[in-house]
């Protein structure tokens, strides 16, 4: 019986919050310009890449498919060659077309981030909830593990791993990175769960005899969604940073490069000294745009989750 009333109660509560939202529909927190702006930038970027896949020959991203070292259209390289329309963004020194490389490389870099962040996040949710809600020995052990994992600069361990494994494919790289991307979400979720645990509605659910698992995932989890998404985006940033770092050190897939691998090649070839700015510049600017968009989404989600920040901005 006790469980029956709980089930009946839940929709009423949900309906209540919905009604409050309806009353001032123009105050919808999700209509946040930072959140929408960041999402818009990413959306636009991927739309252009999608068009690129439709209308551009992506095989040009392989080596020796184009003349070497051509500058982008309208520029001149140090040999006095000018850009040609066949390769509007120029080419690099093993004959890859930069536009094709950009179309192919950008999603590959983001892919690593998404996979690593998702795996790390799932582990973080489970561990964070266990530590925050169950407490006791779980909390002690998980907190200790988090403290240790956060202190160790992940890149150094990844370097040791990759020094042994050599070059790996993107999925393996993503999974390796995810070995180090669970600690920050765990720490964050644990703190949020700890503060939620003492709130009135959780106490109420406890007193009503709701099973622990249901409290965790049906009561607390929905309330944490904005926090969880912000943490997920932050995790994605971290994972992409790790991936780009490893790629720039030369551990990425070499046949079809991603953006970080392109930067690695350009550094190896001294592009910075030869003024071949398009070679490293296009990947760098693209990655910067991705990161700024992710930051905007993250800031927007923060404001959605925290009304006080919303008022301040």
């Amino acid at each position, binding site marked *: 019986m006790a469980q029956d009333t709980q089930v009946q109660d839940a929709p009423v509560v949900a309906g209540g919050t919905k009604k409050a939202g309806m009353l001032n529909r123009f105050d919808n927190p999700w209509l946040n310009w930072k959140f929408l702006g960041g999402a818009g930038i990413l959306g636009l970027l991927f739309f252009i890449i999608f068009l690129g896949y439709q209308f551009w020959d992506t095989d040009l991203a392989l080596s020796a498919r184009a003349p070497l070292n051509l500058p982008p259209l309208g520029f001149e390289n140090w040999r006095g060659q000018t850009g040609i329309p066949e390769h509007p963004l120029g080419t690099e020194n093993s004959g890859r077309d930069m536009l094709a490389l950009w179309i192919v490389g950008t999603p590959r870099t983001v892919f690593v981030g998404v996979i690593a962040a998702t795996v790390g996040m799932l582990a973080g949710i489970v561990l964070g909830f266990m530590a925050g809600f169950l407490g006791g020995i779980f909390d002690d052990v998980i907190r200790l593990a988090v403290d240790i994992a956060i*202190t160790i600069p992940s890149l150094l361990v990844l370097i040791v791993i990759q020094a042994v494994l050599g070059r790996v494919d993107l999925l393996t790289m993503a999974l390796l990175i995810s070995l180090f991307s669970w600690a920050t979400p765990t720490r964050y979720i644990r703190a949020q769960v700890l503060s939620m645990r003492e709130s009135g509605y959780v106490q109420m659910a406890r007193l009503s005899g709701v099973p622990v698992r249901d409290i965790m995932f049906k009561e607390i989890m929905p309330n944490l969604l904005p926090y969880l998404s912000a943490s997920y985006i932050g995790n994605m940033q971290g994972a992409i940073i790790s991936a780009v770092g490893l790629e*720039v050190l030369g551990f990425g897939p070499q046949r079809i490069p991603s953006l970080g691998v392109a930067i690695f090649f350009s550094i190896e070839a001294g592009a910075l000294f030869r003024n071949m700015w398009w070679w*490293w510049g296009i990947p760098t600017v693209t990655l*910067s745009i991705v*990161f*700024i968009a992710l930051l905007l989404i993250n800031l927007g989600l923060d404001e959605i989750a925290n009304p006080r920040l919303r008022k301040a901005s």
Partner: protein
Amino acid sequence: MGGISLNYLLRRLLVFFLTLWVAATLIFIIPRLAPGDPIAAMVARLSYQAGFVENADLIIEGWKERFGLNDPVYVQYLRFMTGLLGGDLGYSMARFPSTVTELVGRALPWTIGLVGVATFIFFIVGNLCGALLAWARTPRLVKVLIPMSMIFTSIPPLLAGLLLSYTFAFLLGWFPQTYSYGFGLTPGLTLEFIASVLHHGILPAMAIVIVTFGYWALGMRGMMVTIEGEDYMILAQAKGLKPFYVLYRYMIRNAILPQMTALAVSIGTLVNGVVLVEVIFNYNGMGTLIVTALREQDFGLIQGTSFILITTSALAVLIIDLSYPLIDPRISLEGR
């Protein structure tokens, strides 16, 4: 040390030593989990090259002895750990007469200096910007300019390093593109050398600062906004205290404490970034050393560099954690 409870101290020390132990164990295990045995392969490669490498027999003997490849794993593990405890990181394979400790000892001060200066700058600038963003009396112009300067926040230091290196070193030629001091200078306490070090250090440090300080500004702003709603702020204003005094003593002093915790947490990420920035600028610190080791397949040097850098990070975290209760008298007894 009245501020530190025994419990807190013990927990921090436990985390510190466990971190070192975990790092050392990972570094020991990883090569042995891999398909094939890279150490055996390395020794084999060296024997193959013995004709060309000076003192190759010595190296091979040293490595065989050091790794005791025929011993059971736990004996190897114990030997590895006692080696680390004694600060013995073995020989560099690619530059034989030098030990890893020697090479690391030459590179580590540069990295610590770079990270230290960068951290000092971004922590102060970031927190100040954050405080000004939230403060009601900040001029409007400043409130517009600060967010604009934060445009680079969140992009990896590596990419900022590339952009800075191209703009200010290659195009404008204001700063040198590589290394940590001028060619042909001998390190020493001469004015010329110090000026050269500063000149070379500005771009790598800026690469870290411009992508980092925005985070601290945002964190600080969030903290300040929370504090502005507190009752004691109303009391402070009602008392007629000077606005600057309120800003410093009531707001910044309270808001800076969680920022210290955040700093300890971010050390690992910071070191990741610095390693890569060094590679961009060919700065002769640990990052460049580890990349050289990678290029030369010098596995012992890779292990040693990683371990020392992890140890240094853990030590930095420990120092921040232990200084935290001295700044904040309210630190709770059971830690955080």
